[in-house]
């Protein structure tokens, strides 16, 4: 059977399958690497000599879902160090501290983990490295580091406090090491809510005690209040921010992963059905020779798998390459840290291979169902009619997509954009299903029109071929329509949301400048007070909080959201367009909410970024929820629960700030027009667009490949036409006209399907029936479709002589 199947295979059709699987493999493997990294990507371990680490729990378990990671450091009591030290099997236990620290005089190499956690107490060095020269820093103004000169005086901002330090020691570990006393002060552990705490307890096991054994003992002694990490999990304990950050990697491809799987399935299925159609006659003969429908389906399946198998390995290689490029992009937009590499395991390739072979198996079964059941006697010259079930299912999906697109009319939170975003993929599946019948109807109407009846031979034939071979034409029309719909709707949805966001952010921040210090991981202490002496200014903290569902269509379980912390000083500066309450009351356990989410005076349970549970009072409600998110917390509350405890930015009225800022190193001033939500969203949008571009390129190559194969396979048909008196020129013209019809049909269908959700989105978010630009994408996509069809058809057409 296998031998027969392979002998029957037509190379042309199977090349299409091969290319489809190759590209699909690359896409799925690349997505898989990102997802895999979302679970496993880690920063390099700092406390390399600690076999076990005891830290607070940095995640909240969620029923039937992944736990929500907490990005801000939750400290543990300093007394825990003593308790751990007494546990049998522990050779040494150190209370480790990390705090923001950066050398601002001259240049220093970047520290793994960034400046936010570059400062440590001297005792941590016993587990992270060695003293290589000099003596232990003892005074408040002494420091040690890896790349420096003994005795050198350095300007350092540590814990938000600028000061001059003398280098007393050189070490072989990254980061800046201070005396333990200085570290405790700089990390804010000598007073306030975090007094007497440490970040984690790093443990070295006694000789002959295995880390796992020790971890077990510790777990028995300490209970499950603490996270006890060994092996590669130590890195997670060291940097909770990195754990939460990589969670973003899971979200990024998730938003487009479904679409890519759908496209891969569509392309592979299309390739297979092309291959099947080219050997209809042989398959019919096989049936006539006594093969059962099941055997015919097996022949088709074997051919499909034979074409898919050789594409797996090169596809996977291409996928890893693509993932690396995607990783660069993620680093470029700040979604992934440069020192947090992607994980290139074998798992994504294996999973992608299994998935694709499954897709090929299912697609070949579906594509061969009708051919295999064809009555033995008939069917050879049959063109195939689209089944009514298929058509109706497609029309239903298109209808459903229209209903979904209406969501922004009802709700105006960001979640409403999910409606139109889901509508587009649904619509294109609908188009693929209903396509043949739609093409048949449209071309039929065209063919019957008086206008076409008067056209010249080639043009007339082109219209009639499109009508008569609707199944053949519809494949290309649907695939190209998919390119147009997805390209337009995904891109313009993003730009429309971005425009809606900045339309709210711009008036909210009108007439303000932003002061930031990215290389210090936060605004140094004292700067805000000095700015305030010159001009009205407000500090702003960005952090993450975890809440239950707030608005319609939110995740019903817990969701981590980036939020802004504002204080009373924001009143009169940052305009949230308040409905009720006042920003001046944003102190202590207080929050402001989007007016659609709650009312002043209500209580809201909030889990802060370090896991602290707070019952906050709603003190204000506002309208600009797209720019500021559904929730704004008080700055006090936010700052008390961040790793650094520093402001992220200062918003101020413009004034002669230059002389002041010259005294503060590494501080930058920018005009503020972007809302705080814009950064995260635009990063995500960029990745979505990049993935989309790759996807659409894949789809275009696949369609072009298919068109070439279809046109080449028409040799018999063209020979007949020539014998009936068609000149080569007429045949070329006919084929070109068919190309024009395909391109026009695809562009038209694609634009219509994209337009409905986009118009709704425009009405909902911009109060006008037009989405945000760039609207040249519309003619642009038509041009791309036209170009691809032209190239794919012109090549074989030129060979007609």
């Amino acid at each position, binding site marked *: 059977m296998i031998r027969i199947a392979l002998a029957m295979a037509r190379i042309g059709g199977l090349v299409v399958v091969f290319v489809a699987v190759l590209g699909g493999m690359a896409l799925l493997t690349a997505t898989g690497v990102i997802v895999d990294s979302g679970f496993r990507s880690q920063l390099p371990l700092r406390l390399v000599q600690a076999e076990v680490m005891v830290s607070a729990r940095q995640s909240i378990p969620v029923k039937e879902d992944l736990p929500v990671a907490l990005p801000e450091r939750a400290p543990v009591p300093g007394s825990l160090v003593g308790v751990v030290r007494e546990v049998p099997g522990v050779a040494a236990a150190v209370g480790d501290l990390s705090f923001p620290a950066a050398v601002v005089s001259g240049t220093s190499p970047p520290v793994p983990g960034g400046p936010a956690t570059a400062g440590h107490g001297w005792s941590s060095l016993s587990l992270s490295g060695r003293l290589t020269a000099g003596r232990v820093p003892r005074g408040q103004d002494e420091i040690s580091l890896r790349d420096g000169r003994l005795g050198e005086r350095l300007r350092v901002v540590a814990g938000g406090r600028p000061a001059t330090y003398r280098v007393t020691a050189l070490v072989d570990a990254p980061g800046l090491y201070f005396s333990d006393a200085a570290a405790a002060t700089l990390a804010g552990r000598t007073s306030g809510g975090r007094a007497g705490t440490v970040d984690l307890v790093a443990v070295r096991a006694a000789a002959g005690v295995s880390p796992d054994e020790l971890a077990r003992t510790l777990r028995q002694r300490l209970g499950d209040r603490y996270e006890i990490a060994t092996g590669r999990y130590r890195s997670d304990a060291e940097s909770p921010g990195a754990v939460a950050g990589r969670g973003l990697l899971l979200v990024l491809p998730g938003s487009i992963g479904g679409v890519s799987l759908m496209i891969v399935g569509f392309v592979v299925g299309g390739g297979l059905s092309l291959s099947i159609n080219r050997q209809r006659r042989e398959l019919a003969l096989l049936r006539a020779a006594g093969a059962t429908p099941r055997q015919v389906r097996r022949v088709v399946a074997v051919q499909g798998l034979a074409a898919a198998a050789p594409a797996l390995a090169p596809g996977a290689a291409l996928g890893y390459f693509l993932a690396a490029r995607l990783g660069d992009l993620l680093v470029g937009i700040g979604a992934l840290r440069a020192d947090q590499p992607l994980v290139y395991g074998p798992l994504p390739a294996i999973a992608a291979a299994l998935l694709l072979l499954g897709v090929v198996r299912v697609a070949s079964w579906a594509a061969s169902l009708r051919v295999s059941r064809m009555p033995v006697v008939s069917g050879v*010259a*049959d*063109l195939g009619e689209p089944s009514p079930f298929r058509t109706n299912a497609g029309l239903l999906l298109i209808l459903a997509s229209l209903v979904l697109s209406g969501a922004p009319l009802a709700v105006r939170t960001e979640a409403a954009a999910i409606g139109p975003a889901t509508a587009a993929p649904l619509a294109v599946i609908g188009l693929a299903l209903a396509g043949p019948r739609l093409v048949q109807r449209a071309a039929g109407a065209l063919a019957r029109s008086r206008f076409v009846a008067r056209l*010249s*031979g*080639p043009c*007339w*034939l082109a219209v*009639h*071929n499109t*009508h*008569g*071979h609707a199944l053949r034409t519809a494949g290309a029309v649907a695939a190209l329509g998919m390119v147009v719909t997805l390209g337009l709707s995904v891109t313009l949805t993003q730009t429309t949301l971005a425009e809606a966001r900045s339309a709210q952010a711009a008036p909210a921040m009108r007439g303000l400048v932003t002061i930031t210090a990215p290389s210090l991981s936060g605004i140094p202490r004292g700067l805000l007070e000095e700015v305030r002496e010159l001009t009205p200014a407000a500090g702003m903290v960005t952090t993450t909080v975890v809440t239950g569902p707030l608005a319609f269509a939110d995740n019903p379980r817990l969701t981590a959201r980036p939020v802004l912390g504002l204080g009373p000083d924001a009143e009169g500066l940052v305009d949230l367009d308040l409905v009720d309450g006042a920003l001046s009351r944003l102190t202590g356990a207080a929050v402001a909410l989007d007016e659609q989410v709650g009312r002043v005076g209500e209580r809201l349970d909030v889990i802060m970024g370090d896991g602290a549970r707070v019952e906050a009072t709603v003190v204000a409600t506002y309208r600009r929820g797209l720019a500021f998110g559904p929730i704004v917390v008080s700055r006090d509350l936010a700052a008390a629960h961040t790793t650094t405890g520093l402001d992220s930015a200062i918003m101020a009225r413009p004034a002669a700030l230059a002389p002041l800022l010259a005294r503060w190193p590494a501080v930058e001033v920018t005009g503020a027009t972007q809302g705080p939500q814009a950064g995260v969203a635009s990063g995500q949008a960029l990745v979505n667009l990049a993935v989309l571009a790759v996807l659409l390129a894949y789809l275009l190559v696949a369609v072009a490949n298919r068109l070439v194969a279809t046109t080449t396979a028409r040799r018999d*048909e063209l020979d*007949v*036409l*020539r*014998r*009936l*008196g*068609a*000149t*080569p*020129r*007429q045949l070329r013209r006919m084929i070109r006209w068919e190309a024009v019809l395909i391109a026009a049909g695809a562009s038209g269908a694609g634009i219509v399907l994209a337009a409905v959700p986009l118009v709704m989105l425009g009405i909902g978010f911009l109060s006008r029936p037009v989405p945000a630009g760039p609207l040249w994408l519309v003619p642009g996509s038509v041009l791309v479709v036209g170009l691809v069809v032209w190239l794919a058809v012109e090549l074989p057409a030129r060979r007609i*002589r």
Partner: protein
Amino acid sequence: MRPVVTLDRVTKRYGDLVALDEVTLAVPQGRFVAVMGPSGSGKSTLLHCAAALDRPTSGTVKMGGTDVGRLSETKRTVLRRKHAGFVFQSYNLLPAISVQDNITLPLRLAGVRPDREWLDELVHRVGLRDRLHHKPAALSGGQQQRAAIVRALAARPDVVFADEPTGALDLRSAGQVLDLLRELVDELGQTVVMVTHDPAAATRAHETLVMADGRVIDVLDAPAPEELAVRLTRLAGGEPVR
């Protein structure tokens, strides 16, 4: 009688294979000529060359007084459109368009207005009046071949070339098609050149050319079926004929 197609010492080679060997022939107007011979005897090549579907390696083919050999593919196509009609074993109707559109297709390609009366008469004659708006797949083999004959005649060509027109048909349909061809010759003065395997088909022709090894070895005037059968059996036996 004026010859519609003439072949003068036409040779066609495919590499080393000589498919036609210096064949000289004239097909007079109003004649029904059958071409027979065993497989590989060159009868299809003869048809292709005579119909200007293919170019001879040497010698001249004239159709409507024009030397075909010197024309480009496009010019030959235009010439064929004007002077020749074709009927094929596999009907070669386009499945995507209706029977009527199939019939007028060559006219459309030539940019010529169809002669309604002429077409009506032809359609009536072959009995396809009520099948015109169907797709070819809805017609029986005999009906499809009759549609193909109407198509071949639509442009009032000087000559109709038929390549095994009954090869795919049952006995009854084949008889109908052959009767039709003979009728066209007798009643409308049409010229038909038909390649066939079937001695019964050849008996409907005015004359039968018998081919072997790329040459016309015999011309039989209205042969009786038995006589033809005997000749062909001897050829099939591989007996050399000089």
